């Protein structure tokens, strides 16, 4: 995400938020974006641009679906009378193949919002993501699920 993109996005967001896409308002939004970029100048320099809109949208779609599914699953779990029987929690160290900060972050957040899993932390060597599972029947299956699902798509977005 480079500075120009941030400014543009913020300008558009500003115009949308305030409900007026007049030139003046866009200009003001752009100025705001510049100000924010100034404030965050240290963190913006090392970023790579986002490409591949299509993949992003695909990822988004997958995510939204999984999110709804996960919410429903949790909801179904909590109203079950035999709650104790259904919940089989576990903490799993998932090996990571993504390396950049952005990728790890995105992946971790996605994992948290999707069914049955919740990211606790990244290991200091950034090789593992510790994930808490609400119900785990098979450790390897869970890991494979993550590695082949979101991690793959995240990598695709960032490559």
């Amino acid at each position, binding site marked *: 995400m480079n500075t120009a993109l*941030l400014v543009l996005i*913020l300008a558009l*967001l*500003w115009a949308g*938020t*305030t409900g*007026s896409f*007049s*030139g*003046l308002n866009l200009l003001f*939004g752009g100025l*705001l*974006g510049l*100000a*924010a970029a100034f*404030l*965050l*100048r*240290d*963190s*913006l320099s090392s970023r790579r641009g986002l490409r591949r809109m299509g993949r992003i949208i695909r990822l988004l779609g997958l995510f939204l679906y999984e999110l709804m599914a996960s919410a429903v699953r949790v909801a179904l779990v909590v109203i079950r009378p035999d709650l104790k029987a259904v919940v089989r929690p576990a903490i799993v160290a998932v090996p990571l193949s993504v390396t950049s*900060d*952005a990728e*790890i*972050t995105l992946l*971790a*957040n996605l994992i948290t919002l999707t069914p049955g899993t919740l*990211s606790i*932390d*990244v290991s200091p060597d*950034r090789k593992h993501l510790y994930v808490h599972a609400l119900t785990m029947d098979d450790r390897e299956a869970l890991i494979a699920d993550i590695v082949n699902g979101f991690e793959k798509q995240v990598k695709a977005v960032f490559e």
Partner: protein
Amino acid sequence: MNTVIFRTLAPVIVATMLVFSVYVCLRGHNEPGGGFIGGLIGAASIGVLGMAWGAEAAKRALKIDPMVLAGCGVVLAGASGLLSVFIGAPFMTSIWLYLDLGETVLPISTPLFFDLGVYLVVFGTLSAIALALEGDDGEETP
């Protein structure tokens, strides 16, 4: 709190909060919001920044001493009240200018500057407090 995930997401969150804070400030004259709430949200964003990056980095990012901003805010608010001396009206009489820019009419008014002053004061002061607390080495004396 210094985790990869937090550090990485912080700029996005901070930028969103900052923009939102200005938005809330500016539209306060007509809808819920205003300088105080805007400043509060803005300062909260600095708080997030401080927690994610540490106080020193947040200070460096701000560049200006936040209390100076606060001072500017009070001066701005006071000055916008003093302007009415030029129209022979009492202190804090609002003056409205409508800049006709063809496309839109931009209202510029002393209450607007006043609200901006409020924003700056709240933003500056709370940021200063947050950063001072954050930078305070914190460990209690034995």
